[in-house]
């Protein structure tokens, strides 16, 4: 696999970085492999990448602050609907579904990504509000909250049909900023 890691060593007291022979070779190899076509934006459903006219090379690789969607993804039927609606929204590009368990587990990368989000939508299946509470306990207070029970979907009595998922996704989409 072509090296995707540039390494430069900085030694204490050194005025400039010193690239050792091996590291320099790695760097050179990485530079050589970093043609624009080798450096696509993160291939996520909502990744916004500007591409050069008439070509496939991205002119901007950095992904913008995202609209993140967290679903409770609980065991009940409504948890399944919440999960599928979040995935549908992600596929449609309304936002990016992200890992609620990562927030619960305080996984650093997921926490920092969530902090950098432009907007957050939490989808809960039932009034226990597990997604909402997980975000609150992790210190996130600014987010939109959608609970399926508020839409008349009762736990244990609402099969995860396409219609139900579409209804929740539509409501969720309306709650996210354009």
């Amino acid at each position, binding site marked *: 696999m072509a090296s995707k*890691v540039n390494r430069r060593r*900085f030694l204490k007291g050194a005025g400039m970085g010193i690239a050792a022979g091996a590291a320099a070779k790695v760097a050179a190899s990485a530079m050589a492999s970093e043609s624009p076509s080798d*450096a696509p934006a*993160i291939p*996520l459903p909502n990744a916004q990448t500007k591409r050069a006219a008439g070509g496939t090379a991205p002119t901007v690789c950095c992904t913008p602050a995202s609209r993140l969607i967290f679903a409770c993804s609980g065991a009940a039927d409504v948890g399944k609907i919440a999960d599928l609606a979040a995935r549908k929204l992600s596929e449609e590009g309304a936002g990016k579904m992200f890992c609620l368990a990562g927030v619960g587990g305080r996984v*650093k*990368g997921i926490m920092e990504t969530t902090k*950098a989000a432009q907007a957050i939508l939490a989808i809960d299946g039932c009034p226990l509000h597990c997604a909402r509470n997980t975000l609150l306990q992790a210190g996130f207070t600014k987010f939109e909250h959608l609970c399926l029970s508020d839409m008349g979907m009762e736990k244990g009595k609402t099969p995860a049909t396409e219609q139900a998922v579409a209804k929740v996704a539509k409501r969720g989409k309306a709650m996210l900023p354009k």
Partner: protein
Amino acid sequence: MKVIQVLGTGCPKCEKLKKNAEEAARLAGTEALVEKITDIGQITAFGVMMTPALAVDGEVKAVGKVLSPQEIKAFLQ
């Protein structure tokens, strides 16, 4: 020795963050290894969905912004 990882696929913002990380290492007088990670699989393995991002010794410190050398220096001390 600290390992500073710059996560990004190679745009000017990522390059700027890498330069700032190198500058931070100089300012801190700390022995540091600056790595630029451009592989998408590796980036997402950090739990990062927005770039550029910065990790120190494998721990993500910032996502979606270009930190200044001073800000990065604080992570090295």
